[in-house]
């Protein structure tokens, strides 16, 4: 644990700044992070009403934008700015995390299988945190998010915390840690 401005910074958080700027290190990574953010946002919003999404896309795939726009408005009207802000923040962080996960996997392929195994829990954690809201809807618990504390915002906040933890633990995916300490 180190001190920054007199505040104790936990070990896992020290790599967070490096992890967050990793997509800025190449045009491809930046584009990848942008695409991953857009796809994650669309999936998160569409999964709030899976029955509608499936029907809309099955009848006309070009209704994708209509469905995203309608469910964005629906999400805002149901959970307000805080809930929608958490979804958007999650999408941005997931975009960064997925870009970093790809870099980690690439590095692991070069350095050996043990590193791949070390990365897998982080990637899975990121994936699970992202599905939170959607899984409840897909299982038929429409309205379940509304019944959760703060209309599901606590779950969304938990997903963001999990992603930040994953990003902080990984740090810059292109540099190696020594002795487990970054």
């Amino acid at each position: 644990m180190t001190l920054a401005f007199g505040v104790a910074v936990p070990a896992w958080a020290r790599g967070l700044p490096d992890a967050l700027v990793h997509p800025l290190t190449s045009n491809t990574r930046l584009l990848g992070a942008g695409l991953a953010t857009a796809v994650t946002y669309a999936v998160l919003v569409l999964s709030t009403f899976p029955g509608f999404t499936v029907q809309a896309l099955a009848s006309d795939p070009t209704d994708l934008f209509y469905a995203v726009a309608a469910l964005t408005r629906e999400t805002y009207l149901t959970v307000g700015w805080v809930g929608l802000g958490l979804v958007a923040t999650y999408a941005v962080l997931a975009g960064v995390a997925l870009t970093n996960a790809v870099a980690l996997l690439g590095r692991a392929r070069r350095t050996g299988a043990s590193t791949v195994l070390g990365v897998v829990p982080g990637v899975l954690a990121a994936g699970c945190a992202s599905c939170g809201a959607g899984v409840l809807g897909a299982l038929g618990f429409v309205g379940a998010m509304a019944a959760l504390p703060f209309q599901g915002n606590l779950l969304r906040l938990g997903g963001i915390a999990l992603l930040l933890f994953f990003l902080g633990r990984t740090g810059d995916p292109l540099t190696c840690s020594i002795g487990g300490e970054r």
Partner: protein
Amino acid sequence: MGSKDKITRRRAIAAGGATALFGGGVAFLATRSDSDEPRYVPESFHAGERETVFGIELGGRPIAGDRGAPVDVYYWTDYLCPFCKRFETETLPTIGREYVDTGDARVVVLPYPNIGAYSMPAAVWSRCVWRQVAESDSAAFWRWHEAAFDAQSESGTDWADEETFARVTERTEGVPADPVDSCRSDSAGSIRDAVETNLGVAQSAGIRGTPSFVLYNRDADASGKLVGAHPADTFSDALDRVLAA
């Protein structure tokens, strides 16, 4: 990290701009107001008779459209549901003019309280309003129905309470407030039971949220299901398929 992996000012600006654009886009979609199209009021109404169609007891329910229309649209709704308001403002006017007013379809309004604590009391309000105006001024029910959706606030379900629905009732032309209140005091229990019964039918038909629709051609015994506030074109296609069955 090689030289090509350096963080450049250009990429940092691009990332900042894209993030701002993303946030702005989400905010724009979230705040884009509903359609300004004039609200739809059906040309004809009738109360359902003691008949059970598709397992649903229609007795005394508000039905928009001609009694002899070949297709029934069972519309499960909740006054606290923003997506239902979207259907009412963006899809229903087109469907109403092109299918209900022409005698091709009739719309049966069915409560599906699922959004918030006041969803069931709102369903009781609706049923009591219909009971008071069904014989004398059935269009007043639709005016009340639209006014109740208009009362939805920008966010959350806190807006839905006794005071709001009492205000909507008092302000709607043709709806007598005192008899509605008496109905709510005397019949709330039996109305809740009836709602619960039809809720069971809806759930067994795979209805899990609002708005949801079953389109049913009574003569051909053919049906289709729609979930959510689809655009009018998608709704029309589904109606055409059931009509042609």
